[in-house]
C-alpha cells in the first residue's frame, strides 16, 4: 500500500482567524480544537485539482504505478460537476488507460474506510489488479465566512493510495454502520435536487456562528453524542471480528474530527496515548483524508512498521461509520 498526500499551498492560521474574530484568540483556538493552521484550496482549486496533484506526486515517486492502475475510486462530496463524476475526468487528466473501471462515491469522514472495503472486494475478486483510491475534499469552500466554529476545524487535502491484491490480503474484517437519522446533523442542505441553491436566510448556532442552508451545517453536540455512542462499540466489535485484543493494536487511527472529541474518546476507550493517533495541528479536519494523512505520517516517521497492526475508524456525515484492522507491510 503506497500513500501520497497533497495539501493546497494556502493556509489559514489561528492568527488569521483572530483578525476576523477578535474574541476568538489564536491561543484559545489551539487550546479548544488542537489546530494551529489548516490548508485551504484557492478560489480556482477544486478537490479534483487537489486529487490530480496527489496522484501526480505519487507517480513522480513511483513511476511504475501509473501503468498498472486498472481501477480508480474517487471519494468526494464536492465534485466539479453534477455529472459526470470526478473519476472519469481524473482518468483523462492523469492519462490513465481507458481500459479501467472508475467511479465516484459520496462519503465524508468514513470515506477512506469504505474505500478500503470496496478496494478489498475488488482486488480479492480479481475485478481489479492495481487500484487507486483517491480522497479529496475542500469543505472550506462550503463554510460560511462568518462561521468561525467550522472555519477553525476544517482543512482541505487530497490523498492517493495505491493497492494491489497483496495489500488487500492485509486488510482485515470490517464493521460498518449507517444511520440516516443523523442526516440533518451534518449537512449542506441546498444545492441538490431536493432544495436548489438560492437565497437563504442567515441563521446562527452556538456562540454567534452564522450559516445559511447553502452552507455546511454541523450540530456539534449531536455529532459528539453520535461519536461517544457508536465509536467505542465500533472499536470493540472490530477488534472482536478480527480476533484481536486492544493490546494487539500498535496504533488506533480514528478520523481526526476534532481534538476535543478525540481526546474524550481516548479517555473512555482507555487506549494509552502512545497507541492513539491525535494530530490535527497543521491540517485540521480534512474529512475523508484524515486517515490516509495519519497513515502517511506514521509510516514516514517509522512509528508504524512492517508487521504492525493498526485499527482505522472513520465516522461522521451520514451518519456513516466503519472500521477495520490493517497489517502494515
Amino acid at each position: 500500500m503506497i500513500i501520497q498526500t497533497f495539501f493546497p499551498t494556502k493556509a489559514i492560521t489561528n492568527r488569521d482567524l483572530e483578525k476576523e474574530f477578535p474574541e476568538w484568540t489564536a491561543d484559545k483556538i489551539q487550546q479548544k480544537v488542537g489546530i494551529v493552521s489548516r490548508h485551504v484550496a484557492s478560489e480556482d482549486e477544486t478537490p479534483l485539482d487537489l486529487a490530480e496533484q496527489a496522484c501526480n506526486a505519487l507517480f513522480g515517486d513511483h513511476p511504475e504505478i501509473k501503468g498498472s492502475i486498472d481501477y480508480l475510486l474517487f471519494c468526494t462530496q464536492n465534485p466539479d460537476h453534477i455529472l459526470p463524476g470526478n473519476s472519469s475526468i481524473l482518468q483523462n487528466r492523469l492519462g490513465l488507460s481507458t481500459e479501467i473501471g472508475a467511479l465516484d462515491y459520496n462519503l465524508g469522514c468514513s470515506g477512506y474506510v469504505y474505500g478500503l472495503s470496496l478496494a478489498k472486494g475488488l482486488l480479492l475478486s480479481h475485478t481489479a489488479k492495481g487500484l487507486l483510491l483517491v480522497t479529496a475534499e475542500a469543505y472550506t469552500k462550503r463554510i460560511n465566512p462568518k462561521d468561525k466554529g467550522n472555519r477553525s476545524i476544517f482543512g482541505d487535502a487530497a490523498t492517493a493510495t495505491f493497492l494491489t491484491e497483496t495489500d488487500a490480503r492485509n486488510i482485515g474484517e470490517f464493521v460498518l454502520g449507517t444511520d440516516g437519522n443523523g442526516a440533518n446533523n451534518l449537512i449542506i442542505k441546498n444545492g441538490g435536487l431536493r432544495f436548489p441553491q438560492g437565497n437563504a436566510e442567515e441563521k446562527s448556532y452556538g456562540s454567534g456562528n452564522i450559516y445559511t442552508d447553502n452552507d455546511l451545517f454541523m450540530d456539534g453536540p449531536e455529532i459528539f453524542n453520535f461519536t461517544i455512542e457508536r465509536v467505542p462499540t465500533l472499536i470493540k466489535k472490530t477488534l472482536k471480528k478480527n480476533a484481536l485484543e486492544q493490546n494487539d493494536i500498535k496504533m488506533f487511527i480514528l478520523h481526526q474530527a476534532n481534538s476535543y472529541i478525540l481526546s474524550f474518546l481516548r479517555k473512555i476507550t482507555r487506549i494509552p496515548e502512545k497507541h492513539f493517533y491525535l494530530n490535527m495541528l497543521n491540517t485540521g479536519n480534512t474529512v475523508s483524508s484524515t486517515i490516509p494523512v495519519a497513515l502517511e505520517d506514521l509510516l514516514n516517521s517509522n512509528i508504524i512498521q512492517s508487521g504492525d497492526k493498526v485499527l482505522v475508524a472513520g465516522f461522521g456525515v451520514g451518519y456513516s461509520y466503519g472500521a477495520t484492522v490493517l497489517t502494515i507491510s
Partner: protein
Amino acid sequence: MTDEKKIELLAELFEVEESEIIPEKKLSELKWDSMNMLGLIALFKGELDIILPAAKLRTFTTVNDILQEMK
C-alpha cells in the same frame, strides 16, 4: 454523586468560582457556548455515564436545569 461534587465539576467546566454555581444562575451569564456544551456532554458521560441528548441540552437556561438532569 454529592451536590458538592456536582458544583465542583460545573465550576471547573465554566471556569468560575464554585460560589458562582448557584441553581438560579442563568447559563447566559456563564460561558454557555458550543465548547462548553460539548464539555457538559463529556461531563455527563465521563462522570455519570449518562448520554445527554442535544435536544435536552438546548432546553437548559439555568444551572438548576443542569443540576436536575444530573440526578
